[in-house]
């Protein structure tokens, strides 16, 4: 909701201000959040989920070349970076541009992973514009059933 309101920070700065004020009023600003958290509306949007055996990260990055995306893990921090080319016509042309809301340019997002993941068990897939990175947990951290003798 809030993310979708400030896709145009330049033109709609007033709405951004409104959002900040709302956040302050409702006390959200007082709650500590991740030191690497990005402003709402950052590209790509990221969803993170946990399963007993893995951490699943979904980055909603449509229209990028998967070969030009870098996914790195360094000391427990996963970084997704790359560039999305503008589809708008460059230079002088007879094309009129009305809506220009889609992200263009380079992007970078960082996610701190939990301590029990194994950086050697990483799989990344790109399908329908969603980058899906699956990081497995360490063998020792997997849930175990203990048999009673």
């Amino acid at each position: 909701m809030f993310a979708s309101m400030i896709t145009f920070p330049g033109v709609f700065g007033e709405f951004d201000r409104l959002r900040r004020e709302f956040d302050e009023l409702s006390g959200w600003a007082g709650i500590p959040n991740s030191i690497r958290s990005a402003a709402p509306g950052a590209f790509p949007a990221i969803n993170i989920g946990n399963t007993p055996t893995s951490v699943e990260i979904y980055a909603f990055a449509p229209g990028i070349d998967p070969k030009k995306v870098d996914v790195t893990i360094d000391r427990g921090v996963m970084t997704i970076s790359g560039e999305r080319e503008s589809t708008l016509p460059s230079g002088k042309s007879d094309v009129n541009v009305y809506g220009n809301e889609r992200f263009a340019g380079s992007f970078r997002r960082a996610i701190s992973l939990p301590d029990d993941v194994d950086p050697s068990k990483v799989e990344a897939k790109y399908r329908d514009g969603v980058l899906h990175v699956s990081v497995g947990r360490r063998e020792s951290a997997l849930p175990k059933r203990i048999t009673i003798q």
Partner: protein
Amino acid sequence: MNDSFVATRAQRDTNLKDTERPGTGTQPTESQRVQETRSDSASAKANTPPVDVLEDSSGITLLADMPGVSKESLEIKVEGDTLTLEGAITSATPQALEASYAEVRVPRFRRSFTLSRELGTAAIEAQLKDGVLKLRLPKHEKAQPRRINVKVV
């Protein structure tokens, strides 16, 4: 709370497109080809995909970011002069997935536009690649610009 924000956003989009509203007394501008509308059926929550709208002399190209939407789950409807794009995010989620952090909270995209009369709805072409929908809305031939010869009498 939520409703007021939806209203604010609708208003912002209205400002963005310089849309004329019936009864406000403003004249439609030449630049206004595709107007966004909020239909009543859009009551269920959905993400609004960001779009680029480009116009050249033969038609309009609309690009919309709809990541996670597959060809099967994408629906493009034209009802009267309203164009609706709708799609469900069908990215496969593993069993027993517990969301710990989510920026995309609703697994659905929806956005509607009002088309102007010179756009032919019969010949709309759609391409979906890597989560980007590309729609080509050609203008009727009679609406395309042409040179008018002046005869000397």
